[in-house]
């Protein structure tokens, strides 16, 4: 699992700060463009079978074909769409929920804080993946359920990341001063608290995106991801296992796609961290 770095380190030299972030952005844009225009750039129909099964790389099939003759490259491109869609939507939900819960919990404090944190601790107590499996098993593996599950599973960490700076900002002298002069709480929240939350949230979001790619592809690897016939990377990897010595690309293709997507978000996270100089929790 991808986690935040344990100790705050000295800020990276200027050039390197922007390099990582730039690289991450390039990777992200590439991925988004390819998957967005997928149906138009994919050479074949992703679910069309053909008698040409387990073919190696060739001019017609850049990455070969799988056991029932489907073009690997096309499946990778189309498969990315569902994976990325679930990932982005789910994480957005988690961020939104985490923001609300974290702000309320940190700002209001007291009993509300205790209750919210305890509730989140309960979710936190389950190994992420186990919980995801259980919830999907209970609700059924449809795309909306997957999105919901992942949002639930990653909300606690988001809430925590939001709550921490809120707690510390609340006690700042100039915030107290503002309050004593009569500045409204909402205004304080927006002007003072929100900016402090942005940096850690951005970094954590990237990390969570990376982790979500893992969770989504792992779930589909186990067969409880997005239902067929739409291709997805995890499912492709799993199906490929049967004949993998005959056509290694059926394994390497999805593996590379998964790694690329995960790497994109990790690089983004590190780039953001270097740029924003965020120590970790």
């Amino acid at each position, binding site marked *: *699992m*991808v*986690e935040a*770095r*344990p*100790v705050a*380190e000295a800020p990276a030299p200027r050039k390197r700060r922007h390099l990582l972030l730039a690289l991450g952005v390039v990777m992200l844009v590439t991925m988004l463009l390819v998957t967005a225009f997928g149906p138009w750039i994919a050479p074949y129909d992703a679910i069309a079978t053909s008698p040409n099964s387990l073919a190696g790389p060739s001019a017609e099939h850049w990455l070969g074909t799988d056991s029932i003759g489907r073009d690997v490259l096309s499946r990778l491109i189309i498969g990315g769409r569902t994976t990325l869609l679930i990932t982005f939507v789910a994480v957005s939900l988690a961020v939104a929920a985490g923001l609300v819960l974290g702000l309320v919990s940190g700002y209001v404090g007291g009993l509300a804080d205790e209750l919210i944190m*305890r*509730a989140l*601790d*309960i*979710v936190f*107590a*389950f*190994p*992420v*993946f*186990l*919980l995801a*499996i*259980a*919830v999907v*098993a*209970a*609700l*059924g593996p449809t795309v909306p359920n997957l999105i919901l599950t992942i949002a639930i599973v990653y909300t606690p960490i988001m809430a925590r990341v939001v709550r921490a700076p809120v707690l510390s900002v609340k006690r700042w002298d100039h915030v107290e001063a503002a309050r004593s002069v009569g500045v409204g709480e909402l205004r304080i929240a927006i002007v003072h608290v929100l900016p402090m939350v942005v940096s850690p949230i951005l970094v954590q979001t990237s990390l969570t995106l*990376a982790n979500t790619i*893992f969770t989504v*592809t*792992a779930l589909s*690897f*186990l*067969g*409880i991801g997005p239902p067929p016939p739409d291709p997805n990377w995890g499912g492709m*990897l799993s199906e*490929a*296992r049967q004949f*993998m*010595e005959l056509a*290694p690309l059926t*394994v*390497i293709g999805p*593996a590379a796609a*998964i*790694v690329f997507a*995960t*790497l994109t978000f*990790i690089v983004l996270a*590190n780039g953001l961290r270097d740029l924003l100089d965020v120590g970790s929790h």
Partner: protein
Amino acid sequence: MTRIVLVRLAWMLPILFGVSVVAFALMRALPGDFAQAAAGTTDLSPEALDTIRRGLGLDKPIWAQYLLWLGGLASGDFGSSFVTHKPVLGELLPRLAVTAELTLMAGAMAMVLGVFTGLASARLRGRTDWFVRGFNGLLLAVPNFVVATLIVLLAGLYFPELGIFNYTPFFTDPLGNLGSMLLPAFALALAVSVTISENTRAAVLEVSSQDFVMVARAKGLRPGAILRNYLVRNALTPVITVTGLQLASLLGGSILIETIFTIPGMGQYLFDSITSRDYPVIQAIVLVAAVIVLLVNVLVDVAYARVDARVSYG
């Protein structure tokens, strides 16, 4: 000291309670009929279905069902499998043992690998540091099931005589068992070793800059002695606690690894039960996993508090 333990345990109780509620609710939140799933077939008369329902206590109010279930847990009754109709606990325990073995092996490997690379990274710096950190970064991007699948692919292509899918139970053939667990444990360990490596590196760097290390050098102690007694001993405590906290990740990962290497552990059992809709089993596994993670977290907290006392009194 005992006070710390009691406090931590007390903190754990409401969470345990919540965990049990969630585990219970998960399986009751199903679309479709629980009783029908228990029966395993839709071809039943309404009377037969009713009998099953009553047998499972489904006619009682939901909170009563929860209490019944909880009471059953206390006496070791985790329900009966919908598939085998045998008590879940009996089916679960041997598989839990297998997963425990896998997890422990993976944890040990991860520690060895992680501490070694982290130490090298922190002490040697320069190119070694770059290499280790770069490699770690890359490794983070490769999920454990991808690693495992690639390992199986490589083995199949270049080392066909290795015989990957030949798990043997421990008591039948201890050495064979350990041998068959090596690669799976390794696949599981890799991702965790990255976290341990980063933490070790950070801890060693932090400790190196402490005054007492400078004093140790001023004493003229040899570098080896300083490394052992001053650096590692202080750096290792946070590292061990972090490793303990990785347990959750290891347990989650074991599902995938067991499936890929066909190891009959708890993870594979979970997967099978999902496929066969064996809800009591799913429920039990989720609960057991969460409880184990909680217990380990508490243990780790306590262990750290004990060592921390020495460090923080100053």
